């Protein structure tokens, strides 16, 4: 939601990044204020996922130019774990399976790392168990998922619920949800989107990276951006997403090439 006089949380300026020497991001511009929900859309290969991974600090991507300020701090100076502790959360398109680590243990260690960061008390396993079970209700998750290894053998929908559960526990200032809707059936999509909506508030912001408009039926964005060739070529309100759904991406591209105004 757009709040009047809301402070800027994220400021991306002229961001360029490469992977294996190939330039993927070519001058990204984006400003996100507290309370806002931004959707970044675009065809495959436009750089959406790269952008989310660069923000989280994935080591395979090299930033070659540009700046990213997060709460006034230079985000690019921070290691991935420090970004997480500063309040950046990436919901993975393909959450990683970690056989041998119980989900409960993983969630508790992650939660306690964040608690320690904020000078708050860590929770022991029993205290955490009560706490996490409450959060799981939000996502209609079966508590059995606590005893299983992290994401191991989870269905696509269960993995995405587990991602949003982590978002609920870590309470990030900025949540970047990379293709959270992919692989979800309509019921799982409703539950996951419902969880995200409950977590959205005036003290955080959300970037939804998505190929399809479907997710945006459930999570209403304040801004919709279209990416192509490593930068944003059009920005609009939520109606833009609907238009993209009916007309596809080509017209945006054509309009852009024809010299239409590129939003600042």
């Amino acid at each position, binding site marked *: 939601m757009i709040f009047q006089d809301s402070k800027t949380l994220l400021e991306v300026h002229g961001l360029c990044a490469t992977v294996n020497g190939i330039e993927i991001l070519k001058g990204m511009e984006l400003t996100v204020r507290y309370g806002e929900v931004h959707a970044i859309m675009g065809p495959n290969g436009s750089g959406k996922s790269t952008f989310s991974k660069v923000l*989280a*600090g*994935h*080591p*395979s991507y090299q930033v070659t130019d540009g700046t990213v300020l997060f709460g006034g701090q230079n985000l690019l100076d921070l*290691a*991935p*774990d420090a*970004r*997480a*502790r500063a309040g950046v*959360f*990436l919901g*993975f398109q393909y*959450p*990683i399976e*970690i*056989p*041998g*680590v119980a989900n409960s243990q*993983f969630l508790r*260690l*992650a939660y306690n*790392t*964040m608690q320690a*960061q904020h000078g708050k008390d860590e929770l022991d396993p029993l205290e955490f168990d009560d706490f996490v079970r409450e959060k799981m209700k939000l996502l209609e998750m079966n508590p059995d998922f606590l005893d299983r*290894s992290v994401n191991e053998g989870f269905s696509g929908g269960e993995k995405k619920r587990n991602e949003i559960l*982590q978002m609920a526990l*870590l309470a990030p200032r900025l949540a970047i949800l990379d293709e959270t809707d992919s692989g979800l059936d309509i019921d799982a999509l409703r539950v996951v989107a419902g969880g995200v909506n409950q977590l959205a508030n005036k003290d955080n912001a959300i970037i939804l990276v998505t190929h399809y408009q479907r997710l945006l039926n459930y999570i209403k964005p304040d801004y919709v951006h279209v990416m192509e060739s490593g930068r944003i070529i059009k920005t609009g309100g939520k109606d833009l997403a609907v238009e993209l759904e009916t007309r596809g991406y080509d017209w945006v591209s054509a309009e852009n090439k024809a010299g239409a105004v590129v939003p600042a």
Partner: protein
Amino acid sequence: MTVAAPNRYLASLLAGQPQLPASLLAWFNDLRSHAVDRVGALSVPTTRDEEWRFTDISPLTGIPFHPVRGGSKPDIAQLAEFILTGAGAGLVFVDGEYAPLLSFNNTGITVTSLASGLASHGTVIEPHLGRHAEFQSNAFAALNTAFLHDGAIVIAPRNVAVSAPLHVLHVATQKGAASYPRCLVIAEPGSVVTVVEEFVALQNDVYFTDAVTEIVLADGARVHHVRVQRESGQAFHVSNCAISLGRASHYQSVSVALGARISRCNLNVVQTAEGVECAIDGLALVAEQQLADTHTCIDHAQPHGVSRQLHKCIVDGAARAVFNGKILVRQGAQRTDSSQSSRNLLLTSKARVDTKPQLEIFADDVKCAHGATVGQLDSEEVFYLMSRGFPEAAARNLLTYAFGAEVISRIPVASLRHKLEQRVLAQTNSQSVSK
């Protein structure tokens, strides 16, 4: 192994043997003297022997180990950390010698020393002791058998199930000593038993453990077998386990190797009848200059046998791990279903693993899957944990721990599982600090 002229080193180890008292049982004396003869004919294997190609045991022969000398036994307080919570019986052997005052048995089945087992169950033991662990060509099994005088005997009677684990604890206390732990488990038809063998040390001494374990499963018996080798970091550990599986029996084993400068574990499993199932898992976690070698052989000698095997090695520092997993499917062992997986994690550029799946299949209607991987920690997994706020070292430790925990989680004894999880977590943490 080559048969060579009498070996001076083996002869020196044998020097203490003649002092062993003769048994009243002629077959027992015969067994031992036959083993003495074999020791005289065999030699310490070298890397020229195919079975020892990757493991140079020669540092052993540079040290003149002596037989265990009588000395003060540790008291129960010194062993407190090694006690297995929830055990139904505990046999303690100090440098290979039975310590009755430290042992107990609340199970109602025979869990006792070799001497008392021979006295009460001599005819049950005779067909099995020394009959499964081949020592004709195996110098270390021969040496152990030549020293046969003490050991653990477990006899699970027909259709008796014991749920509490039986703990056989071997404690090394003497520097420079050679000890010859021995264990025989006889699971009669339909019996169920869990045996935990553990090798520990009170100090970080140089010593030599040469162990032999024989386990016999009669028809329909179920045995869970756990071996934990956490000898001193200076020790040499050689063990030979021979498992004989009867009709429709189930054998599950988990071996964990954490200690010893050089360790070698041979595990030979023979499916002697139809419809046998076995699961054989192992974990070796070594660092610095350690070497851990595991050789397993699963012999599918009869039809309709199932075997599952997962062996993992975590190698840090300049350590080495060796795995040789032989699956033998004999002619006529139709409908055999076997799978083997060797997975290895190298934590440094100096760490090394030699892994060799070895399938020998002489039947045509079988299913045999095998695979081996050697790798480093997955950078995507490390990134995933870091993106949740874990510092890089913590992320790596957790993933290393998790790699090993998969094997440990298969140990059917909760208290031991918990203890080993803590141990592996501590060991992976300390390793990353030392780098």
